[in-house]
């Protein structure tokens, strides 16, 4: 009987030891974070990105800019998100960026990230998501009467099932994409692409089918100012890049 008792005790201790394992601090696949040494060196008093905080609306640190503020490198967009705004942008809005190799190249990179997944590398509406039948009914650029203005307008606001891409791209990048999309449309329709402008020259007005209706003066003024700012951004970027290396 004594041996039975002993075995029981051993089994009990073994069970106890095994049950302790759940509280180990090692990082398991779904466990907690590892222990920290001097946590006050890890976590600052200031708010971190995406942190929760009671001073913020909805407890979210990530907030939109205050209504009416204009961030650096961003210009207000005056066309409305409506059928009229679309028609007006299609007729009047012009690409402020010169058609340079550099702009087209970056436009094609951005197009590859954001657009090609549905619209296809060639703009024929046969992207990977369409071919796998996850998203259907994406038109080819050749079948739609698009201008650079309407391309920009649709990227800014979205249209029907397509969402807005204003939060993922900057104004400059959207115009670069517009250049690329327009080039794709020309390829699909068999029209010759535009000739490149050398980066030093001033942008020439791009030949586009235009409506003569309604060209408001302040929109023109905005578009004249715009070409200055991408060049500034580019300069800043190259500086930070070389710094980084």
């Amino acid at each position, binding site marked *: 009987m004594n041996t039975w008792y002993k075995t029981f005790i051993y089994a009990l201790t073994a069970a106890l030891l095994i049950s302790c394992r759940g509280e180990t*601090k090692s*990082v*398991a696949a*779904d466990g907690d974070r590892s222990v920290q040494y001097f946590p006050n060196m890890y976590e600052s008093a200031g708010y971190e*990105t995406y942190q929760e905080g009671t001073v913020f609306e909805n407890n979210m640190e990530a907030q939109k800019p205050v209504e009416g503020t204009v961030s650096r490198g961003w210009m207000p967009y005056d066309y409305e998100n409506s059928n009229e705004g679309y028609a007006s942008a299609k007729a009047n809005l012009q690409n402020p960026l010169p058609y340079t190799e550099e702009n087209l190249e970056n436009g094609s990179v951005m197009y590859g990230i954001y657009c090609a997944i549905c619209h296809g590398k060639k703009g024929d509406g046969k992207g990977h998501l369409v071919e796998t039948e996850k998203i259907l*009914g994406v038109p080819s650029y050749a079948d739609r009467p698009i201008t650079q203005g309407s391309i920009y307008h649709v990227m800014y606001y979205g249209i*029907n099932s*397509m969402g807005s*891409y204003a939060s*993922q791209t900057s104004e400059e990048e959207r115009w670069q994409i517009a250049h690329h999309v327009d080039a794709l449309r020309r390829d699909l329709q068999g029209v010759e692409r535009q000739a490149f402008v050398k980066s030093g020259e001033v942008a020439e007005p791009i030949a586009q089918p235009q409506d003569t209706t309604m060209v408001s003066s302040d929109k023109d003024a905005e578009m004249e100012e715009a070409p200055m700012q991408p060049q500034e951004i580019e300069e800043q970027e190259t500086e930070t890049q070389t710094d980084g290396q």
Partner: protein
Amino acid sequence: MINRKLHFSAWQFILAFVFVAFSAFSAGAQTDVTTNDGEPATPQEVEPSAGSAGDSALGKQLFNANCASCHNLYKKMTGPALFGVTKKYEREWLYKWIKNSAELIASGDPQAVAIYTEYNQKNMNAFPQLSNTDIDNILAYTDTPKPVPTDSEVTGAGDGGAADPTTNNIILGALALVLLLLVVLLLVVNKTLKRFAEANGIQTEFETEKEERTPIWKAFVQNQFLVLVSAIFLLLASAYFAYGALMSVGVDQGYAPVQPIHYSHRIHAGESQIDCKYCHSSARESKHSGIPSLNVCMNCHKSISQVADDTYKEGINEYGIDYNKEIQKLYAATGWDSAEQVYTGDTEPVRWVRIHNLPDLAQFNHAQHVTAGNIACQTCHGPVEEMEIMYQYSPLTMGWCINCHRETNVDLQGNGYYEQIHKELSEKRGGRQLTIADLGGLECGKCHY
């Protein structure tokens, strides 16, 4: 004696019976499984009936290419559900509407204006490229009734999927029962044999071995060599484990918390081949690789409210996740009413759990690595396109950073401004290609400031 023999053979018989019964049962279970699998095969073959006029197969192609971005047959999307549209409107009117709806609205057609106002004055694109026969084909396709079998197909398959584990459980249970029976059997046999031996006065081995021995711990203490070896072994082992424990302080490699919405990188980045930067767009130009705001999800999920049947089954069977419910969580957070296709404005933040978190004493800039350094996301984040659940792939320790800075060569092509300096530096280092470390990548102030 004869009685006993008979008794044992009875036990043997029971044992044999149990085995036979069990094997017969498992064979029966197997046939059950096959019928379960075989069952749904019959309703699957039901094809949608061909339309009255026009080829619905051709129509389906045209529909998917031109209409499906805004229309579904049975569900309201940007435009109305199209099943039965031929009964609602006259064919001639439909031709006109599809070819150029704006013109029809402008002409003041009451039906056209009614639809236009009902759907928030959104213009339907004009399709002048479609001929009347094309439209006939599309309309034939819209007349296909909702395939009822798909529902039973899914549930049937679900039953099949559920039946598998249950039959497994039954088999395992039967096996456990048999084992238990065997144990009991052995005990009984042992007992009877002992009693038998006792009755015949036979001394068994077990009883003779009761002489006094030195306890094992005393023997151990007396053997000094053994004590020394085990002491050294213990010290080494504890040093090994202590080192491991200390090195894991502040290292969260493998950390994979449960997120509020089960987002599968495997499906999005792997199967769907969506670029990392599509969602994490700020990695291109910001310190942070941002968590995408939910409008980015809705770019696609406005039209993808349900996953494909195969994906759904895979999620249920392999990961135990109902992907459709996860999409509904997204809709709840964004306040998207899928039936009415409008935002209710009733939103709610998603409390994602942060995985990669550098201590505040270290500075890391995504743009510098992604845009300037042109480093693939997978270099640090691992095979994200295969991760069903996101986890931290790299240790993110200082040694890990430094190692990469020492080993990674810098691509200095096309960097005109610093060309001369880079050339001189390279000559100083014996003409080899420069690494990040050569350009100051090991300076304390680069990351700690």
